[in-house]
């Protein structure tokens, strides 16, 4: 649109628009963003930080927090602070991958169910109902135990548990949006079925999914840690938060072993809940404040 764009008043840059958006979020949402940013930076750069090796003995066993070891040492004398910060490179990418996969798979199936209807709808949504009828941790445990321990398998198990939520969300959105007049107008203009779905329906369906995915991110991180806690996720000696808490539980009177990873999980879950709530306040004006 070169000829056109020159006549248009300069539109604010992408970064500027993002900043305006952040400023519209409630304080809790902004705190959530800060915490998540901290973890994002940590997980990308932690290997360059001046920390002791998370897998090597760094001092005496079971030392309480001190100037040398801010969060103490664990049963094998490893530095808990270093392990906690390194733990972000396990839990967060897994949670991210699980949420993204679940959103992609669930939304695609849900959109197909809502748009095509009929037996496609029936098959997909009954499959979703069956999946949702199991308690999530139980189903994830069963799948993970069947596939064998390890983070990738735990991730797969969690995607299987999580996709139906997004399928339902997307289906409900598509069913609502497809009856709007602009969809009818598009059909009256001669647009084909695929085009109507992709151009005129789906772009209006993302808000609830985005909000839910943000909130679920913390929940998925928690479930990943839970699976590791019971030995179905990360394999020792990886400094994964869930397995670290599990080690801490075995040495209950050395409370500092579980404190670091526990706070880490808490901060991630809380941050995503804050951010998700904030996003809902800004994006979804229909919902209760």
């Amino acid at each position, binding site marked *: 649109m070169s000829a056109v764009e020159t006549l248009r008043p300069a539109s604010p840059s992408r970064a500027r628009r993002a900043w305006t958006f952040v400023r519209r979020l409630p304080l809790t949402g902004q705190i959530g963003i800060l915490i998540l940013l901290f973890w994002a930076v940590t997980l990308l750069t932690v290997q360059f930080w001046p920390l002791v090796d998370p897998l090597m003995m760094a001092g005496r066993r079971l030392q309480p927090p001190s100037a040398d070891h801010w969060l103490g040492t664990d049963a094998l004398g490893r530095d808990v602070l270093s392990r906690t910060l390194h733990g972000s490179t396990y839990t967060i990418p897994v949670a991210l991958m699980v949420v993204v996969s679940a959103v992609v798979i669930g939304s695609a199936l849900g959109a197909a169910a809502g748009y095509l209807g009929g037996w496609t709808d029936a098959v997909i949504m009954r499959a979703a109902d069956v999946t949702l009828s199991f308690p999530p941790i139980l189903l994830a445990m069963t799948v993970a135990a069947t596939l064998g321990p390890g983070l990738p398998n735990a991730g797969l198990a969690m995607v299987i548990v999580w996709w139906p939520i997004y399928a339902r969300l997307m289906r409900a959105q598509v069913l609502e949006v497809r009856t709007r007049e602009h969809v009818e107008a598009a059909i009256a*203009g001669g647009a084909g079925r695929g085009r109507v779905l992709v151009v005129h329906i789906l772009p209006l369906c993302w808000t609830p999914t985005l909000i839910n995915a943000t909130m679920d991110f913390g929940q998925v991180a928690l479930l990943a840690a839970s699976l590791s806690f019971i030995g179905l996720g990360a394999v020792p000696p990886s400094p994964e938060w869930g397995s670290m808490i599990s080690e801490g539980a075995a040495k209950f009177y050395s409370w500092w072993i579980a404190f670091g990873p526990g706070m880490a999980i808490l901060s991630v879950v809380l941050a995503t809940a804050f951010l998700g709530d904030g996003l809902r306040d800004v994006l979804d004006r229909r919902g209760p404040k």
Partner: protein
Amino acid sequence: MSAAPLLEIRDLRAAFPGPHGPVEAVRGIDLMLDAGEVLGVVGESGSGKSVAMMALLQLLPPSAIVSGSARFKGRELVGMPRGEIRQILGQEIGCIFQDPLSAFNPVLTIGDQILEAIRLHDRKISTQDAKRRVLDLLASVSIPQPDRRVDQYPHEFSGGMRQRAMIAMALANNPSLLIADEPTTALDVTVQAQILDLLRQLAAERGIGMVLITHDLGVVAGMARDIAVMYGGRVVETGTADDIFYDTCHPYTRGLIAAMPRLEKITEKLVSIEGTPPSIFDRPAGCSFAPRCKLALPDCRATDPSLRPVHRTSVACLRAEEIVAGTQGAVRAEFEKGAL
């Protein structure tokens, strides 16, 4: 009048599945439109006027049962395969909807949506040409500063501007038929007049045939050559606009005309037709207007009259001749009371 009509509808019916068998919303209508002319379809909400148009464009939900015939340039639209009618929709037939805000996709700019309308039917057009055409179209519907407006979203347009943009989109591929479903209902009166002027001018310039659906007789008065009045899913009276306004002989049409507020009678109370239109689930036997008609005879509740030429229009009313004469029995009494 020698050539075949642009649009010829014969015995068009549309029914929806109901709890106790199919429910007919359109019960056999006949309409005809010549190229370059305007046909006004008038009726209250629920009279079946919009459903009839959506039926012939195959825009009803798949559960709807459509029968009869609707020939557009000699091609039968009823039962035409989806792939074929897609070539006609937006290309040879343009549609204008009642609420231009909800008829636009809120997440695309106006320009992108018109661009898409062009691209959909002309895949070979270059981006440059298509964009130029969008600007031309916006200019042709008198949108000021089209080069700025083209990049704005529907919510940045006012109601009247939005409807202009909708008209531009409907005209994007130079259709020969325009179906305008209550194009001015969502607009305030001054804007309404501008939009009607614009439609009239564009239709005349480009020789477009137009079906103008409305519940407002005032809207069709200055626009349409022919008018069809619908009630209860049927056409109850058709004729030229003048004949409908000055020589109507259907009690319903008379009621509609009497109900129009007039400047010269400003002190009088507004007139209304008593009662409500029949529910399509519970249609009365006989003439569907009979329950509200002051002239109804027992016969009217038994037989449903079909259209026949009476005086200057075609009327579906058993007592049309008497109404024309205006002299006999109950009809005369009603005239004297000033009810008609």
